[in-house]
């Protein structure tokens, strides 16, 4: 009795003859029930191990990203305040800028594997390295904002002269320009890496980081008592941008953005976005007349922006562990068959 009752001795003879005559057999073999089966490309990788290395940065780095952003944008606000004759905001903006710079350098140095070699950052200047650009920018910004504060305080103390006035303007403009680079280079630093979630969001992270710095600088001013229409306007724009970015990330639904939407880091991202985005925006738009609501909005935004910095770094850590995030970018056609 044959294992397969449908196969007779005649069939075997026919197969032998065909094979002998043509060299091969023209048949499909057995078609199992339900065939042909859809064959999704298997998610191939080496034991599912990460291809890339996770960032080695410690807790100081996201905090530095935040502080640098606030400091840099404060210098921009200070320059605008000077131009429009708001003495209070000018002085506060310059001081926030200086204190931020003074905090930034130790944070950055503490993260280094060899802190004593921090100055090695300044032995070369490399435009193609955002880290190099950043080290020089922080040095330049610190000097400029420091000089601006010294000039400003000397003038306030009655030692003003034309030279000091020109020097103050020059220092303020330098601080504002380098401040913008200081607040934005950190986003380029993430975007120009091999980490999929950073690299694929290289156009979005600058928006997030600059909006975060802008809103936080205004928020810090408000918490210092400057509840002005200026800070309200800036706060509304910044939180509106934060809201839009969060919507974009959620709606786009890309695989590479999974760390921003899923798991602990996903919720961290959402918490930061909710505080700096809709919460702050609604408080300002609907209860903008109440100073208490403005304070709460400022605290929400600053906290949200700070959480967001940590979330972006943590998302990079998660992203680096997922080999498929990398493979999907590099073989889009290959992977579209899988999903």
């Amino acid at each position: 009795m044959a294992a397969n009752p449908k196969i007779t001795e005649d069939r075997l003879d026919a197969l032998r003859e065909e094979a002998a005559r043509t060299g091969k057999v023209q048949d499909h073999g057995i078609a199992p029930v339900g065939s042909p089966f859809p064959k999704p490309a298997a998610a191939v990788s080496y034991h599912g191990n990460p291809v890339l290395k996770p960032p080695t940065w410690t807790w100081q780095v996201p905090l530095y990203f935040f502080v640098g952003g606030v400091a840099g944008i404060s210098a921009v606000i200070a320059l605008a305040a000077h131009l429009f004759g708001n003495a209070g905001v000018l002085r506060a903006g310059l001081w926030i800028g200086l204190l931020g710079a003074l905090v930034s350098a130790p944070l950055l140095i503490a993260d280094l594997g060899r802190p004593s070699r921090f100055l090695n950052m300044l032995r070369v200047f490399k435009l193609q390295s955002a880290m190099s650009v950043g080290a020089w920018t922080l040095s330049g910004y610190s000097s400029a904002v420091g000089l601006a504060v010294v000039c400003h305080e000397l003038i306030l103390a009655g030692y003003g002269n034309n030279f000091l006035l020109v020097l103050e303007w020059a220092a303020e403009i330098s601080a504002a320009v380098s401040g913008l680079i200081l607040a934005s280079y950190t986003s380029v630093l993430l975007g120009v890496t091999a980490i999929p979630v950073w690299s694929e969001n290289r156009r979005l992270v600058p928006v997030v980081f600059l909006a975060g710095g802008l809103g936080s600088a205004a928020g810090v001013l408000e918490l210092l008592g400057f509840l002005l229409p200026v800070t309200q306007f800036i706060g509304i724009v910044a939180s509106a941008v934060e809201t839009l970015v969060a919507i974009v990330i959620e709606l786009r639904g890309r695989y590479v953005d999974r760390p921003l939407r899923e798991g602990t880091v996903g919720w961290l991202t959402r918490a930061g976005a909710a505080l700096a985005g809709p919460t702050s925006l609604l408080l300002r738009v609907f209860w903008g007349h109440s100073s208490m609501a403005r304070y709460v909005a400022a605290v929400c935004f600053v906290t949200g922006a700070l959480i967001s910095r940590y979330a972006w770094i943590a998302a990079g850590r998660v992203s680096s562990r997922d080999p498929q995030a990398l493979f999907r970018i590099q073989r889009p056609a290959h992977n579209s068959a899988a999903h």
Partner: protein
Amino acid sequence: MRTSAFLTDASVCIGCKACEVACKEWNHIPDDGFEWTGQSYDNTHALGASTWRHVLFLEEKKPMGPQLAGIEEPFRWQFLSDVCKHCENAGCLEACPTGAIVRTELKSVFVQQDVCNGCGYCVVSCPFGVVDKNHEVGTAFKCTFCYDRQRDGLMPACAKACPTRSIRFGEWEELRQEAQVRVKELQDRGYNDAQIYDPTGSSVGGTHAIFLILGQPEAYNLPPAPEVPTIHMKSAWGAALFSALVVVLVVFLAFAL
């Protein structure tokens, strides 16, 4: 000086790890913690600060080339000794803010330990996930291409220790031709998925470590189309510049209104 290179051939690798041991002994690299991973015979996970040669052990439910044995439950055990790719356009080198990572006269990529300050930017900039920071020492480590040995006319320790000539060391162009010949030979013998891994067409501009693999690069955790991250410089800075201009506009508008 010659342009040296590695050709690592998975088809003759026997997974002995002599290259890993030779590399560790010659370069005084610390151990990896003696952990059992459960991933076949691989207990060193991946390339890193303390693993400059890494032997991969792939267990695949595929037939081994034209072999008939085990045709009902196809299985093959593949080995490959991975190493720093020494890219022509190296992500780590571009990212290094101290100038610690340099291109040597041998065209290899070298981390100068006395200059590195451990900022960690090379770690996230390597498209192959090779270089890593040693947290005890505080600086970044990876394969030196046995720069010291090569300077003295010796071949790298891993290549010298390899008993099957799976790791070949020599002139870049010669090895590329050798790889072509070898892959043709393998394909003719029925190893249809034999291929050369040498990303010359991408922005890394070719690597000084060429691999001959059976199957797709992803199975070896080799990126199928690696790019040097700096190709995204323009789009990232462009977005930053645009955002910065908007910030200036918003701030000035806030005061003007």
